């Protein structure tokens, strides 16, 4: 079922702010087995010119994916029982995200395309501090799958897996 093109350009309200913590950065860095000292040790981060530990490059997904749920689960948008897989992801960094940042995220439906019967949604998420400083822009492409077996089997409708 083709999606309604009139949703292109729809922008969702800023998400509740997410406070980036040193220990969450440590947990994430450990989980991706990347123990760069700039992620773990404030002194090492300061030696590189950062005010506190910085987050690994893909850390913003922790904020961007739940924010994307606003669009994917928007009842007016009408994905219904479909589910989505993550097709591609890109980040443009205005500055590294770091401990102490309070980040809010504004999600916009950038494009809706239909290729070979599959609907694809491009979302652009602006991550910025609550003070208004831009930190990162995340571009995500999500492919809509009509097959409902996964959902019936218990998967989240919006998931960050891949085809």
């Amino acid at each position, binding site marked *: 079922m083709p999606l309604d093109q009139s949703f292109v350009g729809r922008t969702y309200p800023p998400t509740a702010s997410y406070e980036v913590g040193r220990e969450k950065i440590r*947990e*994430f860095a*450990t*989980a*991706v*087995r*990347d123990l*760069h000292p*700039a*992620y773990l040790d404030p002194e090492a981060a300061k030696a*590189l010119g*950062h005010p506190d530990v*910085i987050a*690994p*490059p*893909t850390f913003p*997904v*922790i904020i961007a*994916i*739940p924010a994307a749920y606003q669009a994917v689960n928007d009842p007016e948008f009408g994905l219904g029982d479909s589910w989505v*897989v*993550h*097709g*591609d*992801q*890109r*980040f*443009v*960094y205005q*500055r*590294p995200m770091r401990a102490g940042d309070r980040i809010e995220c504004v999600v916009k439906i950038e494009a809706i395309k239909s290729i070979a019967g599959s609907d694809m949604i491009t979302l652009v998420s602006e991550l910025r501090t609550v003070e208004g400083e831009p930190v990162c822009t995340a*571009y995500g492409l999500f492919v809509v799958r009509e*097959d409902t*077996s*996964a959902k019936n*089997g*218990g*998967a*989240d409708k919006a*998931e*960050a*897996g*891949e*085809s």
Partner: protein
Amino acid sequence: MPRYENLAVGDELPAQSFPVDRADLVRYAGAAGDFNPIHWNERFAVQVGLPNVIAHGMFTMAQAIRVVTDWAGDPSAVVEYGVRFTKPVIVPDDGVGASIEVSGKISALLEDNKVRVELTAVSAGQKVLGRSVAVVRLL
């Protein structure tokens, strides 16, 4: 940190191999908040048509950029990073798991001491990321 003036298109970054097993996926699911069962439940993964449990695409994306951040020295040198998830990294429960082999090379010298790096990520002989490109600002 590598110096821009010493680099040329075609220069290769040191390649790395990243292991991934089921425990890594459980740990990543918790850290990232992505509990989709295709990343930890084999019965479920097979039921939806996958050969086995697969790694989170974002986990693979996090591994691939290591080749760039380890080379650059300061992870904040990465000013842009994107990938396409082309094939899944299949992670069997066999006591060994999978590995992701990542290589990178400089594909363009840009203004402001920036370079573009193209990354290749392979697991079990399959390219698992496409259009995997980072832009890195050097000294």
